[in-house]
């Protein structure tokens, strides 16, 4: 793994992402509108509930959580499976598998460029806006560093999940179906649609051990100092969970992927 090579691939990825300049602005704008919707919905929800704190979350807490979750969603979103399935349909996959670097690594790093652009252009502005609007509700300190670390791990976990899904798509020749199942599960169980704090007790117990939580809930908890992450013990246990899942998924992914490559069915004449 030559760092120069990796840098070159990342740089190429950044340039390609910036190419779609208007698309980026449109994405940002669309996000803002979505957040407005979220704001009004939860405002009404909290207004109707009669109390200001529900399950340990105030309206402000929920808002900040959901806004950052949306921003994070943009950042983490990968079209790996879609691009791959298109590449298989067109037969281009053969070219990709022939490239000098190992396919999985290469794909990961080529998406990194896009992620960096998304992070800078979507997440950071959103973060700044939230800080200004809430007048500094997000604690600024070492937690930012831990947050970045957790985010990187979350990214890798997300990638591994995608790589696990990909072979399933090939075998069943059903990209949309499998992907939608995955997305629905991930979004719901990771706390991206509704903060996990609102889940009923028993459900929350189960969900807190699943890998999906590691993608959204854990990084955000660390950033906001929730779920015990403001103590050393809490922080370490959260990281441990993340890393454990990363390990498991990487191994599973490797096995699955290698057997899948052998059986790849290429479409067309």
């Amino acid at each position, binding site marked *: 793994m030559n760092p120069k090579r990796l840098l070159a691939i990342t*740089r190429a990825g*950044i*340039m390609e992402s910036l*190419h779609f300049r208007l698309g*980026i602005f449109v994405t940002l704008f669309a996000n803002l509108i979505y957040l407005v919707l979220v704001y009004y919905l939860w405002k009404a929800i909290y207004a109707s509930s009669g109390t200001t704190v529900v399950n340990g979350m105030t309206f402000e807490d929920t808002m900040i959580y959901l806004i950052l979750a949306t921003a994070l969603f943009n950042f983490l979103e990968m079209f790996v499976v879609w691009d791959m399935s298109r590449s298989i349909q067109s037969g281009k996959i053969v070219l990709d598998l022939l490239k000098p670097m190992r396919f999985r690594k290469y794909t990961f790093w080529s998406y990194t460029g896009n992620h960096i652009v998304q992070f800078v252009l979507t997440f950071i502005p959103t973060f700044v806006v939230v800080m200004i609007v809430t007048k500094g509700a997000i604690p600024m300190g070492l937690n930012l560093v831990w947050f970045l670390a957790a985010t990187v791990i979350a990214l890798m976990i997300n990638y591994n999940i995608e790589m696990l899904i990909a072979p399933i798509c090939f075998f069943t020749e059903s990209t949309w179906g499998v992907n939608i199942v995955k997305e629905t599960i991930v979004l719901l169980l990771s706390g991206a649609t509704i903060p996990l704090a609102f889940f009923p007790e028993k459900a929350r117990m189960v969900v807190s051990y699943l890998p999906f939580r590691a993608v959204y809930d854990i990084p955000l908890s660390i950033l906001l100092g929730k779920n015990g992450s403001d103590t050393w013990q809490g922080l370490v246990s959260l990281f441990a969970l993340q890393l454990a899942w990363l390990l498991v998924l990487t191994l599973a992914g490797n096995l699955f992927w290698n057997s899948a490559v052998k059986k790849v069915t290429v479409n067309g*004449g």
Partner: protein
Amino acid sequence: MEYSYKNRAFTNYYHADNYNILVIAQKRKRENEMSEYSGNEAVIMKNVCKDFKVLNRHEGLKGSIKDLFSRDYKTVSAVKDVTLTVNRGEIIGYLGPNGAGKSTTIKMMTGVLEPTSGEILVNGKVPYKNRTENCENIGVVFGQRSQLWWSLPLIESFKLLRDLYMVPEKDYQDMIALYQSLVDIEPILHKPVREMSLGQRTLSDILAAFLHNPPIVFLDEPTIGLDVSMKAKIRELILGLNKEKNTTVILTTHDMGDVDALCKRIVIIDKGTKIYDNDIDHLKTYFGSYRTLKIKRADDTWEETLIDDKTTDVMDVIMEKRKTMKIKDVKIDEISTEEVIKKIYEGSAK
């Protein structure tokens, strides 16, 4: 004025470098002759231009970031003042290097793009103003993209097209019978397009393009990537259909075999302008003095040299070569069409 041009051109008739002047003279002549649509022209293009606005992109990472906010556009002229008339029943070869503006002009003729300026009449109507009407009267095979339904057997695609174009049942059956007589379509008729080989797919697309008996058919690189026998089959098909139905065919190609087999007339586009428009025989005549000298070497390989008979004596060249190598066999051919086109491309680059 015209006479002196013609005169000058005449004396230098065989000199390749001055074919340009002859072209200009002919162009002037044609333009002055061009009347309103008389019914015999399939396509009329007059002073057609097409410009595109393109962002001025800068190099490197910093450049990409700067581009994010730039409003610096430049205008690219894809087609510059092209005038062309195609008569009914002609098969014309539409040639030019890649990026010359060929597909842009075809897109304008099929009504998909609107010209920036100039006039186009296809079958007497303006294509981009009457898109659906224009489509009734044209057939298109565009690149390697099949327009047929991927998972359907060919016959089902044909039936759908028959319905789409509202072809009377009798005409449809006659057409299928004609196809059967020209090429054996039985084996592919019930095959889904996705299971066909490239050659069969191309054949199917061409058949589909002619199905509703349009007066004009646009074929974009139909023989690309095909094996020799398939190419021959397709050329035969096109000739047969052109003869039977008097269909005008505008054939874009890079393959000189296509040109030789099918076209009486060729039009060459380069950098957005028309640089040649005449019969293929004229072409050979311009370069009539050129000969391809083929010498078989000692190891049985052939060496080719292009010689201008007017400046160099072929025999002298053979004698020179004899001094340095063993000559097993000699052949002297006319200049190939390919070489002619190459010379024209080179000429326009000057």
